[in-house]
Structure formats: C-alpha cells, structure tokens
C-alpha cells in the first residue's frame, strides 16, 4: 500500500483504528518513515477527501463553501449561515407554551422564517426531544446532528455495510425574525461503497 501511493483506502470511520497500528509498528520495527508518511496520506485523505473534498462541497447551510475542511465548523457557525432549520415544533400540550403556534413558517423559496418570539415563548414543549434549550437571554440554541448510521449491522460485529455519515453538527442561536435558508441535502452514503467491488463492501461486507 505504501508503494502504490493511492491514499483512498480508508473511507469509513474506524479504518484508522483498524490499519494505523500495523503501519506504526512496522515503521518502528524497520526504522523506516515511509510507513508513517503513507499512514498520514491515508489518514489525511480520509479526513479531507473521503467525506467530501475541500472546496467542492457546500457547508451544511448551503451558503458557504468550505475551503479548509470537508466540514467547516467556522462556516457552520458564521452569522450568515444559520444552519439547518430546527425540528418541526411538536404540538404544545395543555399548560405549556402559549406563544403563537406555527412559529416556523416555510417560504416558497424553501427558506424558513422563525416568527415566534423566542424571548417570550420558551418553547418548553420543544425541549423534550433534547434538541433545543432556552438561554438565559431567552434565545434558543438548536443542535442538529445527522441521524444514526443507517447501515448499522445487526450481526453485532459492528460492520456498517459501507455507509458512512458525515460527522458535522451545528449549534446555532435562533432569535425572533431570523430567516433560515433552505436546508440542502446532506449526503449520508459513501460514494465509494457502491463501486468498490474489491473493497469492504464485497470482501468484508460481512464483517
């Protein structure tokens, strides 16, 4: 793998734990840094290429193109990039939030406007799912994370069947009047899985 020079072999999350130790141990054993260099190449590729190359993928909000990492926390946190819209607000139960319902409205262009006044509507109903919480100033933090690994393996061996999920997450303060852009599709399946006939999908697909 060192001599071949391609660095795209590690595209699932635990590949670095599976293969890195043997590279490290061989490098020590043979006192040869080529193993470390190769290991870095594989790792760097897994970090910057396999999950979406730098500069080729929009950040989750779709308003900024990441130029430094496949998933760029700075862009996700930036003011013009409010992040994905929050979860639909569940129907309030009696005795809870009394603010205007339907506070989140979708526009024809796909954007979402937060119309409710977060400073008076604490949305205690929305806190039950753990996704939102009220700050002391009345604003609300919304944490959005991708869904569970859709490829989880029921065998108990932990193989993921060739599906990887991007590891991004955002935390954004939402205040009244804020407009959220349309949420882009987040790629959750590994583009390599389908075409890597000699890869894990076929050989260990199983594992």
């Amino acid at each position, binding site marked *: 793998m060192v001599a071949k020079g391609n660095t795209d072999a590690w595209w699932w999350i635990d590949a670095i734990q599976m293969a890195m130790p043997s590279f490290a141990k061989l490098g020590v054993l043979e006192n040869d840094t080529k193993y470390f260099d190769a290991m870095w190449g594989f790792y760097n590729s897994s970090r910057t290429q396999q999950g979406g190359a730098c500069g080729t993928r929009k950040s989750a909000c779709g308003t900024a193109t990441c130029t430094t990492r496949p998933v760029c926390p700075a862009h996700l946190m930036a003011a013009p990039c409010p992040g994905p819209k929050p979860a639909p607000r569940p129907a309030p139960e009696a005795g809870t939030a009394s603010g205007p319902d339907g506070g989140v409205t979708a526009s024809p262009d796909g954007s979402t406007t937060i119309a409710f006044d977060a400073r008076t509507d604490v949305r205690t109903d929305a806190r039950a799912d753990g996704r939102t919480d009220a700050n002391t100033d009345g604003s609300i933090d919304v944490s959005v994370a991708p869904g569970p690994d859709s490829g989880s393996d029921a065998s108990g061996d932990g193989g993921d069947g060739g599906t990887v999920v991007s590891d991004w997450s955002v935390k954004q303060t939402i205040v009244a009047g804020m407009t959220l852009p349309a949420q882009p599709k987040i790629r959750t399946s590994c583009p390599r899985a389908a075409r890597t006939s000699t890869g894990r999908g076929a*050989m260990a697909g199983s594992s």
Partner: protein
Amino acid sequence: MHRANNWFVSAHPDPTADIVTNKARPSNLWTRAAYYEGLMGLYGVEPDATKKQSYYDYAVTWGSSPTHPWTMTYTAAGVMTPVADNQACGQIYIDLYNIDKQDIRIQEIKGQHR
C-alpha cells in the same frame, strides 16, 4: 481485565474456530483483532509469569490458525487487500513477532504495507 479475559477465553476455548454470529466468519476478523489488541496490553502489564505465557500462547494459537496462518482476513497468503478491517489482525502479528522474531508472523502484513 482478568475477569473480562477469563470470560473471553472460557467462551472461546479454541481461538482458531470461526466466529459464528449470524453467519460464520474467520477468527482473524477485525473484531477479534480488537480483543487481541487488549490482550497484548494485558500481556504487557501482567505480573504473573504463568498467566502472561498463557496470553502469549493463546494469541500465537490464534495467529497461526491452520486455515489462515498469519494472513489477513478473507485474504490468502500473497494476496493484497487494501481493506483496513482485513489488516487489523496484522498489528497483533507484529506484536507477536516482536516477542519471538519468527519471520512468518509478519510476512503477510509486511507484504500488505510494502
């Protein structure tokens, strides 16, 4: 660690036997490599010489399994596999080589990374 390992060894008296969950998989599967990674860690800190030897013997028996001696998972000797999972067992083979330098133990993993 003793307790966990005692359970594991008693549950798997033959380390070369296939791992059978929803189907049979070879014992050099990455899941087993993860166990041996821990076992070698225990080997490193085990004060009891008898126990220490038993860990080594158990690991060597596993590594030299007759059906896939010192080879990568799902991969015959001399065949390249780029799959990290298949190479996971290799780190244990190197550990065992470092204890007793028999070239056969690292021949395959060296071939993979060369």
